[in-house]
């Protein structure tokens, strides 16, 4: 439980950090995934550059009809942000489900996204919110949609030398109800499955729906077949159930000690049903 030797630098500017990362340093933010890997000697980076203290990466602000969240913003800050609670409650609700108080006080939104644990909570919300990731390298900056960002287990669209600078989520339109529903793996607190849903109903019909699912497979995904099946419907219990039944369709489900593939697929359906129902109940 002791890491190998490494050099540690607390970056004072983002440019300094990016310069070091371009030279091969590994970025450290909250350390909730990297430090345990290092202590187990599963990871042994020679140089760490701490970006968790950079003020440039710690903010939650509304700009141009969207909410921009600096990558080093902690889960606790997201959970308790009045701006997010008011204008993008799904993200704040999801943050409240992550780990425990200690983890939420240390872990960061950018760190979680960059680690891309297939059972992490945030990615379900990122998919449902169609979040955008602003990625910055020493030379250029680019924006990647959530659908393209999460590629595989622990694999993202980040290129060598790049870090996440910010995450952009939408300001919810009037009348949209949201919910994150999660079955917890009892040891780790990660999601066996977690489902994020956004729904708006107007004139008795569902006019807008987004569903993101994490924990089921190698990466979080948007359950578009569920969305298509429920859109235009009134949102009765049976309609929700029929649509949710498609949640795991075509998905190669994970299997481990805590949940077999079959069970996970079934839980994806159950929790999609619950997330849709809860989101609908909160919609106008």
């Amino acid at each position, binding site marked *: *439980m*002791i890491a190998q030797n490494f050099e540690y630098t607390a970056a004072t500017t983002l440019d300094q950090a990016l310069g070091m990362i371009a030279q091969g340093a590994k970025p450290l933010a909250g350390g909730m995934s990297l430090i345990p890997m290092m202590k187990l000697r599963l990871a042994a980076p020679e140089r760490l550059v701490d970006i968790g203290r950079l003020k440039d990466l710690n903010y939650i602000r509304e700009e141009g009809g969207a909410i921009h969240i600096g990558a080093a913003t902690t889960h606790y800050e997201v959970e308790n942000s009045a701006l997010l609670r008011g204008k993008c409650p799904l993200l704040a609700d999801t943050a409240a489900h992550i780990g425990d108080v200690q983890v939420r006080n240390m872990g960061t939104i950018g760190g979680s996204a960059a680690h891309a644990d297939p059972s992490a909570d945030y990615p379900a919300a990122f998919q449902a919110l169609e979040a955008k990731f602003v990625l910055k390298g020493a030379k250029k900056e680019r924006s990647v949609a959530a659908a393209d960002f999460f590629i595989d287990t622990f694999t993202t669209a980040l290129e060598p030398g790049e870090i996440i600078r910010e995450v952009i989520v939408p300001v919810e339109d009037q009348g949209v109800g949201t919910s994150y529903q999660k*079955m917890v793996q*009892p*040891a*780790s607190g990660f999601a066996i499955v977690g489902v994020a849903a956004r729904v708006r109903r107007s004139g008795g019909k569902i006019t807008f729906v987004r569903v993101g699912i994490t924990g089921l497979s190698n990466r979080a995904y948007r359950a578009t077949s569920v969305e298509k099946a429920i859109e235009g419907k009134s949102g009765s219990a049976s309609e929700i159930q029929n649509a949710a039944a498609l949640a795991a369709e075509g998905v190669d489900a994970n299997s481990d*000690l805590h*949940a077999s593939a079959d*069970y996970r697929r079934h839980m994806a359906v159950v929790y999609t049903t619950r997330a849709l129902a809860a989101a609908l109940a909160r919609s106008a």
Partner: protein
Amino acid sequence: MATTITKTDLLVGKRIRRREDPRLITGTATYVDDIKMPGMHYAAIVRSPHAAAKIRSIDTSKAAALPGVAAVFTGRDTEHVGPVPCGASLPGLRVPHHHILATDRVYFVGHPVAVVVATDRYIAADAADLVEVDWEVGTAVADPEKALAPGAPAVHPQWPDNKAFDFHQEHGEIDQAFAEADVVVKQRITSQRLIPTAMETRGVVAEWRAADRALNLYSSSQIPHLLRSLVAMMLGLEENRLRVCVPEVGGGFGSKLNVYAEEALMGFIAMKIGKPVKWIESRRENFLCTIHGRGHVDYYEIAAKKDGTITGIKLKIIQDLGAYHQLLTPAIPTLSVLMMPGLYKTQNIRADIVGVFTNCVPTDAYRGAGRPEATHGIERMVDMLAAELKMDPVEIRLKNFIQKSEFPFPTATGLTYDSGDYSAPLMKALATAGYEDLRAEQAKARAEGKLMGIGISTYGEICAMGPSPATPAGGWESATVKIEPSGKVTVLTGCSPHGQGEETTFAQIAADELGCDIDDVLVVHGDTSLVQYGIGTFGSRGTAVGGPAMYFALQDLKAKVKKFGAMLLNSDDVTLSGGQCIDNKTGATKSLKEIAAASYRAMQLPPNTEPGLVSTHFWEPPNFTFPFGAHIVVSDIDRDTGAITIRRYIAVDDCGNILNPLIVDGQIHGGVAQGLGQALWEQAVYDDNGQLITGELMDYAMPRAHLMPWIESSHTCTPTPVNPLGVKGVGEAGTIGCSPAVVNSVVDALSPLGVKHIDMPLTPEKIWKLVQGARQ
């Protein structure tokens, strides 16, 4: 100024806050890892990544060359040390030689093969990675039933059948009972391997004082004196040259009721390098190398008459021992046999144990040690029998209970239950639960398709371990009570409390007996150079055996105080009351403080009386004690997910007299938490290659505070005649009573679907599959 203490209000029985807690909750307590010494070195242990392998060779040259490394030792260097002792003896027991470092073979993942000593713990960890072992990997077997199958890989090549022992015990007319039974119920019941997971992992500091030829050993242990005797033997050091100090212990639960390779290894290193050395176990090492608990596969058969009278019980235990015997490994399942009739009268039993070697870390005592397994088995079987006979689980228990008038009761397994009133806690629990209303609610819920369960367990246990002839190392306990010249009172207890609260409860008893202020009493323990030989804390014995030892020492001391008081008062008729000696004729008094001062000043002595006020007592208990109780669990099952909600948890425990209800509450709460852990979440899982899949807290699911139900805890009180305090012990009750109540509740909830038994842990997936199976 002489203080006159007049205390009439007794402390025993009061909810007094634990005096241990301020230092624990402010982080100022001293644990092994807090000990720092000049010149201290640090050890890191190289462990086997394989469950079964031969060591072709070990190359330590790269590790030894790393700057800061003081020494590297392998099994060749330590062959003369040890072996790691097994204290249990059974007829025909096969005992593998347990080197402190493997010499030519390894038998489980985590088996220590070399140790690196360096000037700091980071260098030690780096150097351990540089030790190169050339392995010839063999085939492992991790499942005890697979290990017994013909052709299974041999854990120890000299014993190809993988059996460490066969044990048989029977009583009464068991074959006749089964032949004449109206109904026989059979069930295979497992009690899965658990990882004790004390909050503080193990740790050892060893300091060799060459000039004094003295070894100081600091270890996180439940048994300092036994550790001293056994480590001295392992090291070939005279016992009186070894001092064992147990500082604060962050949880033991049986896992530190042991003597481990590392304890002798650190002593060996300190003596070799002439520097103090520290080793602190990592959590991963704790999971891989500290003993596990349970590990039973039990085959039960229960015979009964139509009216529900139980006429006989058969039990075959397949005990997963792991690769070696630790201190008590083979003895643990024999406790299950002793406990197998539970609270029921039947005199016809047959028990067999097959002790099986597997390529896993050894099992040994874990909270309850053999009794939870037995209680789980009998309480499940009684419920299954009730279901078979369509009887209420309450009715069948009341029918078979040993009656209040029948104590002392000789059991079929050779015990004599001391005292009991088994229906009392059951009736109280039923009243608390509102049993009739719950059954009515359940009938309604079932009609609506809901799955609601009501589970009962009525448990008994064996505490106050125990009479010496029934224990491997002596079952007495010791105490010294000293009244210092100033009148302050020092208690040295041979039991080594580590969280159970005896620093508080023993002070309560001493203050009551002497009539002094509780703050004048200091309870000291855990240092073999300060405290007379003692046995330790385990098996719910600290208060129930250590308490009486102190009580009798106090009686001797009080007699001596009265002698000095009579002398000072020039009276031949005195009583000791409220902290003073009173002349019954004149009413004149002398305070404890005045008497203490006079006894040490010794200007004058009573006839045939030595100076000073010190008394030591070694108390041999005439019997175990047998606490009991009833737990009721109300559960709701989510059909869609299989998730279980414990809606209510009612615990009525009878542990005899209660010295401090606050501490008893804490023991029940902690015990129930660990029982729920086994029932719902925890399982140590090895794969077929002997790799521990649940090797991290990320995969081994411990009970968490936010998952705990509210525990509706109350008591009945049936004092034991075994000791003068009337106390029975309560450290393990919660754990023992819990798991069958939970499983009985969930099986009850699922019984409309035809479910008769479920093995622990009751994971949602397991429950969901049963619900799904019933749908098809």
